[in-house]
């Protein structure tokens, strides 16, 4: 199937999860309902299917700069449980953007589930920016479930920035991220999470700062509305002369509930670790200020939440 033959729903989901309006530049791999829908390699980026058919390998040649890889996943079939293993081999000195994301449109009565296991092997001094958006839609009674596992192995001097966004339509998510950060390497994570209705979202990070001069900054901002529940578990282990910071900043609304579990483990006297966690409802004076500008309470709330999750 070629990219242009995607139907309207598939195209809309691609826009939601990967900001794609048309065929992306550079390398891409589009997976639809458990099948390969479209693929393109570039001179420096090669995507191949694993021999056992369980996923793909993405190999980025050393020194590749200013290129991007898109690997969106679309699910429309109700009742499908898709498990996929994607391995990224990022060569030394690369500077690339990787855009992943999964959109589920489930109008049926059965659960749809996608479990993406992403592993990143980031070479010396390479820089990657990884953007992952999760999105669900459809009014069927079947649940939309996403359980991503992300593993990041960073070699010396590498820099990884991850943006994970899930703000709509995913009924249940259990996200696990681990990272191992070598000497002089840095990891920056920005997570944005919003849950509605009876949704459940869990997100756990375990970051090992193994090398001297390594650092991690894990920032999670989340909003739990209606009767949704979130569990945020941020753990950094300082195993060398490193610096780590985690921040968990959450707004609860309606009957939303959040459990935040920041954890720091210092295994080296030279490690400097900080965590911050705050949960609370929208401050009354923020609402008042926007209302004095002429917004209704509801409009004020939306502005505050949108800004917070930006």
């Amino acid at each position, binding site marked *: 199937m070629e990219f242009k033959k995607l139907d309207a729903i598939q195209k809309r989901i691609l826009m939601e999860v990967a900001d794609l309006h048309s065929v992306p530049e550079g390398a891409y791999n589009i997976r639809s309902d458990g099948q390969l829908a479209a693929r393109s390699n570039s001179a420096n980026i090669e995507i191949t299917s694993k021999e056992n058919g369980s996923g793909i390998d993405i190999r980025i040649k050393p020194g590749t700069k200013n290129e991007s890889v898109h690997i969106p996943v679309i699910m429309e079939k109700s009742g499908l449980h898709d498990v996929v293993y994607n391995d990224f081999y990022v060569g030394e000195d690369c500077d690339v953007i990787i855009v992943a994301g999964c959109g589920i449109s489930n109008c049926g009565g059965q659960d749809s589930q996608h479990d993406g296991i992403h592993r990143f092997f980031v070479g010396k001094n390479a820089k990657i920016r990884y953007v992952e958006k999760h999105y669900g839609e459809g009014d069927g009674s079947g649940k939309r479930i996403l359980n991503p596992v992300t593993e990041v192995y960073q070699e010396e001097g590498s820099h990884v920035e991850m943006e994970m966004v899930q703000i709509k339509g995913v009924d249940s998510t259990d996200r696990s991220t681990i990272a191992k950060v070598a000497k002089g390497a840095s990891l920056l994570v920005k997570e944005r999470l919003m849950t509605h209705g009876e949704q459940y979202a869990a997100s756990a990070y375990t970051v090992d700062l193994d090398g001297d001069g390594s650092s991690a900054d894990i920032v999670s901002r989340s909003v739990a509305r209606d009767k949704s529940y979130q569990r945020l578990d941020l753990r950094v282990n300082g195993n060398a002369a490193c610096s780590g910071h985690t921040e968990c900043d959450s707004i609860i609304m309606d009957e939303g509930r959040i459990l935040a579990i920041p954890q720091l483990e210092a295994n080296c006297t030279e490690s400097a670790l900080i965590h911050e966690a705050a949960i609370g409802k929208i401050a009354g004076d923020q609402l*008042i200020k926007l*209302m*004095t*500008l002429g917004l209704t309470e509801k409009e004020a709330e939306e502005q505050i939440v949108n800004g917070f999750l930006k």
Partner: protein
Amino acid sequence: MLELKNISFDVLEGHQEIGIIRDVSFTIPDNKFVVITGPNGGGKSTLARLIAGIEKPTSGSLFLDGEDITDKSITDRARMGISYAMQQPVRFKGIEVLDLLRLAAGKRVSVADACQYLSRVGLCAKDYINREVNASLSGGELKRIEIATVLARGTKLSVFDEPEAGIDLWSFQNLIQVFEQMRDSIKDSSILIISHQERILEIADDIIVVADGMIDRMGPREEILPSLIGTASAVGTCVPFSGKPASVPKIPTDENGNPIPKKNC
């Protein structure tokens, strides 16, 4: 025109009702620049909050252009033309100065227009327009942005609660010019400022002195100001030990007399 008629505001402290505002009546006519002063804790901010609709009076009524607004919400009053700059402005994570100015103006404002409001309050627009209105801003910066949101609204009644608080001397001079300009272009609108600053009191049409939740006295500036000079209700900008006024930095202005922002913007 804003009218307060016999406004009282009581709060319950323990088992005791305390009168924070006690039977206050006054009028802010159109085209007038009115300053409220008086000792700290006297109830000035509470009056501003009652006007904006953040607090509801225990008794009494408020009228805007003859219409009873006592039961109107904060939003309704804002839409009817009341603007309010808080004594302690609020911070927001993720909301940029430009977003706030656009929300304030209630319409799509060009970046250039938004920058004008910032320049008027002495902020270098390009440094601030995309800053988040969060904890990274100093108290004085936040205060000026708060004033800019009221300028952006341009409504018929603007209420400023101690606009000069936390603002450095240079910006204060600049700010006085903002208020002088507002005063000059007041047409059909009115301005209510809570302030102890002599420089602001000097440009008032009327002065209201509030103490202990009541109006101590009010009237035209010429009548009230002389009795305030030298008290905490009318503080000079800066009085050195010699008792002579400190030299005041001169504000560079462009050919139209508008202040030129300090930094090269």
